[in-house]
């Protein structure tokens, strides 16, 4: 298709008769191995090695037998792959008290994480919804206190919470720990949900009120169905944070309820005598497996959740 009218236009196009002159033409030649590319990709690859190395060493160590570990270096791949350390870590490793492996801690963590995630998200989402759409006197003040509280080191508030839980009769139980996680999850999650609900079109809310819907009806019928993305982000945040928690797990539970992280630390650091490095590494991987899976599966959403959770206020 011609780019110009074929009927006697301006002389400008006569210049087209000496079309392409000498000299550079077309795309500037770019060498693949240009200096810029080497610097950029080179640095990124070296950095990636720094990040990947520990993972590699973890896996490799967990698949070796102890004799091989004592002889070789940690970077060498296993000459003989054995899964025995994994079995041992799961079912037989000893903490100070009993020797039934990490499986106990795993199920504890599950029992802690699932209710904590559900309740903390339920409470915070309703809170965020109330703050975004139903402002009442003092609401902003309480919210500000909540956010400021997120910066206060946990250690400052731990003992009063111990007392409160003792009075309620749930100190040392899973229930108590769930309550603690709900409390400390509230600032970030409420902020997350509040910002999200505030970003939804106000007209929807107004139309529903004109139709006569009340607080809870609007929440369940209108807000929830539209909020799947933010709930997913909140879940990622909470599952990762609660599963990886150590401090609350060790303060607020009894040994038989210790989550996986606490058990892991006990297995590795409080064993006297021969250290079984391969079992330790297997145990470490097992503990990290759940949040890593969440991470790899959720991809972009994880980044969004962390950025949202990390940006306070």
């Amino acid at each position, binding site marked *: *298709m011609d780019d110009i009218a074929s009927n006697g*236009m301006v002389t400008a*196009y006569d*210049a087209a008769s000496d079309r392409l002159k000498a000299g550079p033409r*077309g795309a500037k030649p770019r060498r693949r191995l240009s200096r810029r590319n080497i610097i950029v990709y080179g640095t990124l690859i070296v950095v990636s090695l720094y990040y990947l190395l520990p993972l590699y060493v973890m896996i490799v160590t967990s698949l070796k037998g102890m004799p091989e570990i004592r002889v070789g270096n940690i970077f060498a791949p296993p000459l003989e792959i054995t899964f025995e350390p994994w079995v041992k870590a799961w079912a037989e490793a000893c903490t100070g008290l009993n020797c039934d492996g990490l499986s106990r801690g795993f199920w504890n963590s599950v029992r802690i994480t699932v209710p904590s995630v559900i309740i903390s998200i339920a409470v915070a989402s309703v809170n965020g919804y109330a703050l975004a759409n139903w402002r009442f006197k003092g609401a902003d003040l309480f919210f500000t206190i909540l956010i400021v509280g997120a910066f206060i080191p946990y250690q400052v508030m731990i003992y009063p919470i111990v007392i409160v839980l003792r009075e309620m009769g749930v100190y040392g139980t899973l229930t108590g720990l769930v309550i603690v996680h709900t409390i400390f999850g509230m600032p970030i999650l409420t902020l997350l949900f509040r910002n999200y609900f505030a970003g939804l079109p106000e007209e929807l809310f107004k139309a529903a009120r004109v139709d006569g819907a009340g607080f809870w009806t609007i929440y369940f019928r209108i807000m929830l169905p539209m909020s799947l993305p933010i709930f997913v982000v909140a879940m990622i945040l909470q599952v990762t944070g609660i599963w990886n928690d150590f401090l609350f797990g060790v303060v607020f539970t009894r040994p038989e309820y210790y989550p996986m992280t606490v058990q892991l630390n006990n297995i590795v650091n409080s064993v006297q005598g021969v250290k079984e490095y391969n079992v330790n590494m297997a145990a470490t991987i097992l503990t990290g497996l759940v949040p890593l899976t969440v991470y790899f599966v959720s991809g972009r959403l994880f980044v969004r959740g962390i950025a949202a959770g990390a940006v306070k206020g």
Partner: protein
Amino acid sequence: MTSVSVRDLSLNFGAVTVLDKLNLDIDHGEFLVLLGSSGCGKSTLLNCIAGLLDVSDGQIFIHDRNVTWEEPKDRGIGMVFQSYALYPQMTVERNLSFGLQVAKVPQAEIDKRVKRAAEILQIQPLLKRKPSELSGGQRQRVAIGRALVRDVDVFLFDEPLSNLDAKLRSELRVEIKRLHQSLKNTMIYVTHDQIEALTLADRIAVMKSGVIQQLADPMTIYNAPENLFVAGFIGSPSMNFFRGEVEAREGRNFVRVDGVAFDVSAYPARTKLQPGQKVVLGARPEHVKVDEPGAGDAHQAMVDIEEPMGADNLLWLTLAGQSMSVRLAGQRRYPPGSTVRLSFDMGVASIFDADSEKRL
């Protein structure tokens, strides 16, 4: 003497062709406007000329020097952006002088150029302020100033007025025209606004889908659009189009549209109209006369809606089975339902071939 030349310029993003073998010659001191709607490639072409985008094929010449592979700073251009792109942490003075300092121009020379630019654009009182303290119009002047101090011959404008409100837009439009008249530099200006194009340009290049549809001065584009797209793009409200067939009767040519026969014998066709040829007849709303005897080929039509706008009255009527508009000067009212006599002056009309969409 040509200032900027583009030869067989093509740009592909993967499988998508954004610019298609473009050829363009811009004279020294000319104000050329690249006009089109979003996605037509006008900004892309400007960025290629600036050197901010690599081309896939073709060449670019500035002052007869092949700059196809040169960095923007070596091309002898200055550029003004839609969002002004002023360095927010620096004062106006530093914004103007920063590039020169980096290029190690002597301080005395820098001061001289900054002073001159500030005078031309009347921004002397603003020199110590930061961009956040300036209004939109002031920011745009500083942006132009940044290009001025570079002491170059070619200025590139990428939709500089699109971020401003209507009033500021018309003020700055006049300023830019005044600037061009006093500096007489080559200016290449990208916009989607036809008013800017018609008022500022020495020549307009109307673009669509990466191809120049017509390159001509504003009046030619207005009076003799080369194809259907250009005809419909320029003019507000846009040209009325009637699709029909050519008929020959008693030695005169007609275009028959849905039972109505327009006498187009007076139309200065470039190639002879063939009977049976499918064509599109175009007439601008402001060229159609109402109730004026002897003003051209006449037809009866009924008024559907009238839109009195103060100085003009815009009528919407039905003729030949379709809706059309007529713009009349004055305040005479034509109530809906009334019948009027429309006259078409074929001397200022346009006829296009229905398939190729080109002007006949």
